[in-house]
C-alpha cells in the first residue's frame, strides 16, 4: 500500500472526527444556550421589580430584617422561610444521609445490603407530592393519637423535605465510597487504625468530592421543591418564620401562588424577581458548598492544581 492510498483511507476518519467535534460543541451549546436564555429572560422581566422594594415593600430594610415590623408586600419573609427550611432540612438529611451511605457501602452485606439499596432506590423514586401527603397524614395521625394540638409547621415541612432529599445523599455517599480502589480500603486496617478512624480519616476524605456533589444536588432540590411544603406548613402572609412549630413562607410557593393569582403586570414582575432571587439563593448555596469543599481540600492537603 502506498503512502498516498493510506492517506486517502485516513481521510474519512478525519471527517468523522470533525463531525464528532462539531456535534460535541453543538451539544455543549444546546445545554448552555437555554440556561443563558432563561436567566436573560428572568432578568429582563424582573428588571422593573428589582430593588429594595421587592424584598421589603414599604418597610425600612433594617426594621424588616430584624423582624420589628411585618412585611406584607415584599418577598423577604419568603426568603427567610426558604433559608430556614433549607438549613433545617440539611441539618437532618446530610448527617443521616452520609451515615446511611457509609453503612450501606462499607458495612451492610449480602441480602440486607440488597434490601437497603432497594429501599433507597424506592425512596428516591417517590414523587414529592406523596412526600407532602405523608407529612400531612403524619399530622392527622398525631392529632388523633396523642397530640390534638399538632399542626402543619416548619418542622414538619423540614422532616418531609429531609425524607425527600435523603436518598440523593445516601446514594451519592455510597457510590463515592464504592468507587474507591481496594488498596485504599486496605490502607487504614493495614496501619492498625480502628474502623472508625479508617472511615472518618481515610475513606470519607478520599470520597469527599462525590459526597459533596450529592449534598449540593440535594440542597438544590430542597430549595426549589414546592409540592412537599404545600401540604405541610407553608402559607401566604405568614411573615417571618416564628419558630419550629409556626407556619412559614417560602420562595417557590410565593412564585407558584402569585403567578396563578396575580392581578397587575407589576405583580407578575415581582414573581420574576422572586424567581431570580431563588436562582441566586441556589447558586449562592452551591458556591458556599464549593468554598466549604475548598476548605476541606486544604485541610487534607490537596489543591486544585495538584490533582
Amino acid at each position, binding site marked *: 500500500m502506498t503512502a498516498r492510498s493510506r492517506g486517502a483511507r485516513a481521510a474519512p476518519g478525519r471527517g468523522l472526527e470533525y463531525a464528532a467535534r462539531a456535534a460535541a460543541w453543538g451539544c455543549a451549546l444546546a445545554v448552555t444556550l437555554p440556561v443563558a436564555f432563561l436567566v436573560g429572560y428572568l432578568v429582563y422581566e424582573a428588571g422593573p421589580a428589582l430593588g429594595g422594594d421587592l424584598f421589603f415593600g414599604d418597610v425600612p430594610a433594617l426594621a424588616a430584617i430584624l423582624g420589628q415590623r411585618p412585611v406584607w408586600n415584599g418577598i423577604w419573609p419568603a426568603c427567610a422561610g426558604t433559608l430556614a427550611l433549607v438549613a433545617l432540612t440539611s441539618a437532618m438529611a446530610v448527617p443521616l444521609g452520609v451515615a446511611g451511605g457509609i453503612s450501606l457501602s462499607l458495612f451492610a452485606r449480602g441480602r440486607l445490603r440488597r434490601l437497603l439499596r432497594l429501599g433507597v432506590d424506592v425512596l428516591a423514586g417517590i414523587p414529592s407530592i406523596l412526600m407532602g401527603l405523608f407529612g400531612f397524614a403524619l399530622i392527622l395521625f398525631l392529632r388523633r393519637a396523642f397530640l390534638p394540638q399538632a399542626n402543619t409547621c416548619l418542622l414538619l415541612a423540614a422532616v418531609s423535605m429531609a425524607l425527600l432529599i435523603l436518598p440523593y445523599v445516601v446514594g451519592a455517599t455510597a457510590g463515592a465510597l464504592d468507587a474507591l480502589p481496594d488498596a485504599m480500603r*486496605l490502607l487504614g486496617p493495614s496501619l492498625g*487504625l480502628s474502623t472508625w478512624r479508617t472511615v472518618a480519616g481515610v475513606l470519607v476524605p478520599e470520597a469527599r468530592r462525590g459526597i459533596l456533589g450529592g449534598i449540593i444536588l440535594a440542597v438544590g432540590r430542597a430549595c426549589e421543591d414546592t409540592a412537599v411544603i404545600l401540604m405541610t406548613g407553608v402559607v401566604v402572609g405568614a411573615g417571618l418564620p416564628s419558630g419550629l412549630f409556626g407556619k412559614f413562607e417560602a420562595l417557590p410557593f410565593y412564585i407558584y401562588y402569585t403567578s396563578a393569582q396575580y392581578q397587575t403586570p407589576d405583580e407578575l414582575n415581582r414573581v420574576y424577581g422572586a424567581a431570580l432571587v431563588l436562582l441566586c439563593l441556589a447558586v449562592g448555596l452551591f458556591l458556599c458548598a464549593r468554598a466549604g469543599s475548598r476548605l476541606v481540600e486544604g485541610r487534607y492537603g490537596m489543591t486544585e492544581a495538584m490533582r
Partner: protein
Amino acid sequence: MNAKATRVPDNGLPPGAVMAARGLCVSFAGRQILSGVDLDVAGNALTVIVGRSGSGKTTLLRALNRLNECFDGCRTTGRVLLSLDGRAVDVHDRDFPVTELRRRVGMVFQTPNLLPLSVAANLTMPLRHVLGMGKAEALEAAREALVAARLWDEVKDRLEAPAKTLSGGQAQRLCLARAMALEPDVLLVDEPAASLDFMAARAIEDLLSGLRERYALVVVSHGLGSAARMADHLVVMRRGQVSARFAAAELARGEALMQCMEEVF
C-alpha cells in the same frame, strides 16, 4: 533444599522464627487461592517470596496480618503464629486484637498508598491514633522513620506539602517510613518496586536489605535477580502452594538459582 518447613510443636514457633503459617488455606467466594501453605518468617532476616502472577503471593502476605478479611467472601483456615514477648499466639485468636496484629505486622503495598494528608501527617496520623502519641512525640518519631527510610533529606523542607506531590519512589519510601514508624516486629512488603524505574527500584532494594537488622521482612518480588541479591530465605510459590525453599547459601551456588528459575517460569 529444604522442601518442608521445620516441624514444630503445636503451640510453638520454630527456633529463630518470629512468625509462621501452618496449613494456611484461603479462598475467595469458593475459589481456592492458597492451599496448605507452611511458611516460616525468621527474625532479622529477609524472606523473599517469588512466583508467577496469580500464584497467591499477595494473598499469602495479606493472610499474615488478616487483611484478606477486609474483602467479601474470604474464608481462611489453618494457623498463623506470631511471637509475642517470647510466646506464640495465633493471630486468629479472639483475645488478640486485630488492630494490634496489624500494628505489629506492618504492610507496604505494591503501589504507593498515601493518606489524603500532608507528608508529615501521613506518618503522624497513624502514630497519634494507633500508638496514642502526642503531637511533638509523633513528629519526632516521624522524623526518625523518615531518616531510616532515607527520605528525610528530600522532604524535610516540604513536610506540610500534600503527600501526593511526591514522586513514585519517594511515595513508596514514605509508605515504608510510615510502616516503620509504628514499630512493627514484621514488615510485609508487596512488590515495592513494581511501579518504579530502575534507579528508584534499586534504592528501595538497598533500603530493604539494610532493614533486616531491625525487622523480620517478608518481600514479594517479581524479579529473580533482585530476589537472589536480597534474600536470606527464598520461597517459591506455585498455584497456591509453596513449591520450593532455598537458603541464601544455596542461592549463591548457580544450580539452585537455575532450579528456582525452572520452578518459577
